[in-house]
């Protein structure tokens, strides 16, 4: 780790102005990726602006429109929130399956979504549940947010403040964990939204979270495991590494989608 200045922000606006004041400043939103990168000397921010004290970035609100979570909601908070468990159990379960206990107690939803790791779980929830990402400057639809590997629609200086999830009719997330890292090697979130439309969002398998149109169409026609069981996803462009070649990942997308439908119906 290189030396850096540690700052604390009292609000999202305070964080934005501190961020603007230093060219190489970075936000600290749990630090489960950032601190590790810094320890390996892969990241060397001049300033770290800790969002942990920004009260306006916290809080969980449930109303008729859905569930809104402050960007600094820790994974463990989401997982154990009785309100989230009741209104949006798929999200509570997904959050409870991220990393290990220490990661869940430090890592935040906003941090994960802004980092957009190709194997992170939250992007599948945001895209699969058709969430809206609210920032210090605007609202961004899920379909417009995730652009590429570690790349999002966020502009320099823009900070995620909250994320709003509409309540689906039914949804489930199935994760095939990388045996070594336990990140999602393939994670599939299947949701039947309130209007009857279906979303199938896949994380871990490609460079960035993506939807599977053929599966969505089939499930809109018939929301059953059989509807997706024989839909094959092309392996082209999927991730390939020592743990899973692209064809295996493609196969697992179908298996995990099928099991997610089963779980959503259960």
């Amino acid at each position: 780790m290189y030396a850096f200045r540690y700052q604390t922000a009292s609000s999202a606006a305070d964080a934005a102005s501190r961020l603007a004041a230093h060219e190489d400043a970075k936000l600290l939103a749990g630090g489960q990726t950032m601190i590790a990168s810094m320890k390996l000397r892969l990241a060397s921010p001049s300033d770290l602006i800790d969002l942990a004290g920004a009260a306006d970035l916290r809080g969980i609100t449930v109303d008729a429109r859905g569930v809104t979570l402050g960007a600094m909601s820790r994974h463990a908070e989401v997982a154990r929130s009785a309100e989230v468990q009741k209104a949006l159990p798929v999200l509570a379960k997904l959050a409870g399956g991220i990393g290990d206990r220490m990661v869940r107690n430090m890592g935040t939803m906003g941090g994960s979504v802004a980092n957009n790791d190709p194997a992170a779980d939250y992007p599948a929830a945001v895209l699969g549940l058709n969430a809206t990402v609210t920032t210090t400057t605007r609202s961004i639809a899920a379909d417009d947010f995730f652009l590429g590997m570690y790349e999002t629609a966020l502009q320099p200086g823009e900070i995620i403040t909250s994320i709003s999830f509409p309540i689906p009719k039914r949804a489930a997330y199935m994760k095939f964990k990388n045996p070594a890292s336990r990140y999602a090697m393939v994670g599939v979130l299947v949701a039947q939204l309130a209007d009857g439309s279906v979303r199938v969002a896949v994380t871990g398998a490609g460079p960035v979270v993506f939807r599977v149109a053929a599966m969505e169409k089939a499930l809109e026609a018939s929301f059953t495991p059989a509807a997706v069981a024989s839909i094959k996803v092309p392996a082209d462009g999927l991730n390939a590494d020592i743990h899973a070649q692209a064809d295996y990942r493609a196969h697992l997308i179908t298996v995990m989608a099928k099991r997610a439908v089963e779980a959503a119906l259960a």
Partner: protein
Amino acid sequence: MATPYIGVPVQRREDLRFLTGAGNYTDDLTLPGQTHAVFVRSPHAHARIRSVKTAAAARAPGVVGIFTGEDVAAARINGLPCGWLIHGTDGQPMKEPAHPILAQGKVRHAGDPVAVVIAESLAQARDAAERVEVDYDLLPSVVDSVEALKPGAPLVHDDVAANRCYTWAIGDKAATDAAFASAAHVTTLEFQNNRLIPNPIEPRAVNATYSRADDSYTLHVSNQNPHVERLLMCAFVLGLPEHKVRVVAPDVGGGFGSKIYLYAEDVVLTWASKKVNRPIKWTAERSESFLTDAHGRDHHTRAQLALDRDGRFLALRVDTKANMGAYLSTFASAVPTILYATLLAGQYATPHIHCEVTAVFTNTAPVDAYRGAGRPEATYVVERIVEAAAREMKIDPAALRRRNFIRSFPYQTPVALLYDTGDYEATLDRAIEMADVAGFPARRAEAARRGKLRGLGYACYIEACGIAPSSVAGSLGARAGLFEAGEVRVHPTGKVTVFTGSHAHGQGHETTFAQVVADRLGISMDDVEIVHGDTSKVLFGMGTYGSRSLAVGGTAIVKALDKVVAKGRKIAAHLLEAAESDIEFADGQFRVAGTDRSKAFAEIALTAYVPHNFPHDKLEPGLNENAFYDPSNFTFPAGTYVCEVEVDPETGIVRIERFVAVDDFGNIINPMIVEGQVHGGLVQGLGQAMNECGIYDSGSGQLTTGTFLDYCMPRADDMPSFQVDTRSTPCTHNPLGVKGCGEAGAIGSPPALMNAITDALGVADFAMPATPQRVWATLQQAQRKQAA
């Protein structure tokens, strides 16, 4: 008064300090004037060093010293030695290319140390290390032992042709060939025994200091055998007088073999501590552990088993290419030879065995002993091929094993070992019963109805422990004897401090050894302290590896205890005015036989130190005895493991549903500790078979699995709840009748699991590790074959 301690599951007395943060590890030690070292390492697998520029780094804040390979060469520091000399089939000694402590001329694996930077703080040392400029000429690299032997392969050492360290063989080739010619059935299998990266929880750590006052050095190091470390470093590398060097291995957080060896960092810091006249500390980062700890296994093997029409084994033929890595680590040459090929008889009366081993240099981290060391590789060969033969010949795998078991002891194998005792039928029977093998067909059918594949596999392992009878070891190339030393110091109050050359780094010696001592002396365990790991306290030690601590180190203590009791009898005879021959010792009392006249152990101890009227010509004051024990033979723990798995063919995920381990460890001192050792060994072995694999990229020579993101350690949720039991035949040649239990789990479990998986998948040829992807791909391939 006398409590029996042998065979009692006494809680581990060391755990209080380990579990409450009161342990004392090398990195915990900070000395006055402490400095910190960072090593500049090769980012390349193979390159010539054009230049190393240190001027900019030397000007960095806080830098105390920088040393490179040139400095080491100028100081005429030798390379790291190998402790075992193998002679090849051509009669020539193995190739022992220099292993400099800082690279000279060439780097030969990613992570090879090039320079050391010493600074006031670790952060300053890191910053300065980034300013060391090394100019490399990249060379093509080779990481695989089979590839490295091919003509035209890059040469790791310019003067070692074909990268061949040696080709060595054991057994009667002509007789083996003749047996194959007459065989009714021959089973052939090729294996890869995957490379493992040890990863003890405490990384290697060193703190070296030099004292100008008396020109002496003290090295604290996370190591399994401090005396051997000192001997190798003083006598072979630095040329320091041994009495001026103290090596302390304090609490050590696991080793599994990887901390047996003398490493470059240990020597560099010891040498440099005088140059900078400051204590220097280095603790490996996990990334450095991955790159530079000695790895394990990495064999390519082709094996053939010849059988008659009734399934009797006629001969076994084995050809192995063993990857040594870039340099010979301390015991590297012994692992794929003496510790491997001599175990190829397994539990079977195979009359003829021939094994040829070629050891090969590659551009990878050195490979050396890792929990089991050669014996897991041998057991894997034997137990996979026996199971494959049973399936090919449609004979029940347990029945085939029974048919070939060795049944009379002592038994001379065709590969040098003399088994003293065993009862292989007993462990097999008990394992079959515990695993409910009879109910397996019903469980398999039930799994099939759920779309799952169920499989069952056996492994009947044997290992040679209690390393080693020095004469045997010497005749096989060991450059040192492998005895152990112990000292029993009885204090005037009857309390006892025991100094042992065995080192504990998780094994629980402080408990087990104290049980032995308390039991023998008839005193309380609370009155016994076990001291190890410090050359200034312990008279000598060969250290801990090869499941030798109790069988060899424990026996040395017993020998010293016998001497204490013998002297105690003399003292008692004097005090009780009886003939020495009339004094009996039992339950902590020296008694005149047939009378009620006795003296307690503590009274004798006090008398020994306040001897007012000893007959000085016959009796010295004091009660302090030491002993060296050199075993007359190896010990031979053995057992049967049965594994049952369920495979999800949709995902390739393997679940271990049952795992039964029935071991013969001879007599058992502490059954709880033994069970813990078995559990740990099983997880390590199953980890190898299910998860772990050290992979180097064949193009770049880089370690692909250099972090826990990619190197898959076994976790608790990968494991079943183990069912373990023992069936014991006491060792015939040590007084405790013990055999050793530290490695068995890691030796027997990989073939048991792989035999279960291949049974589930219906294929013979499937290599470790059984990751979901590899299981799925194998099933896909089998399906395609079936369709075609």
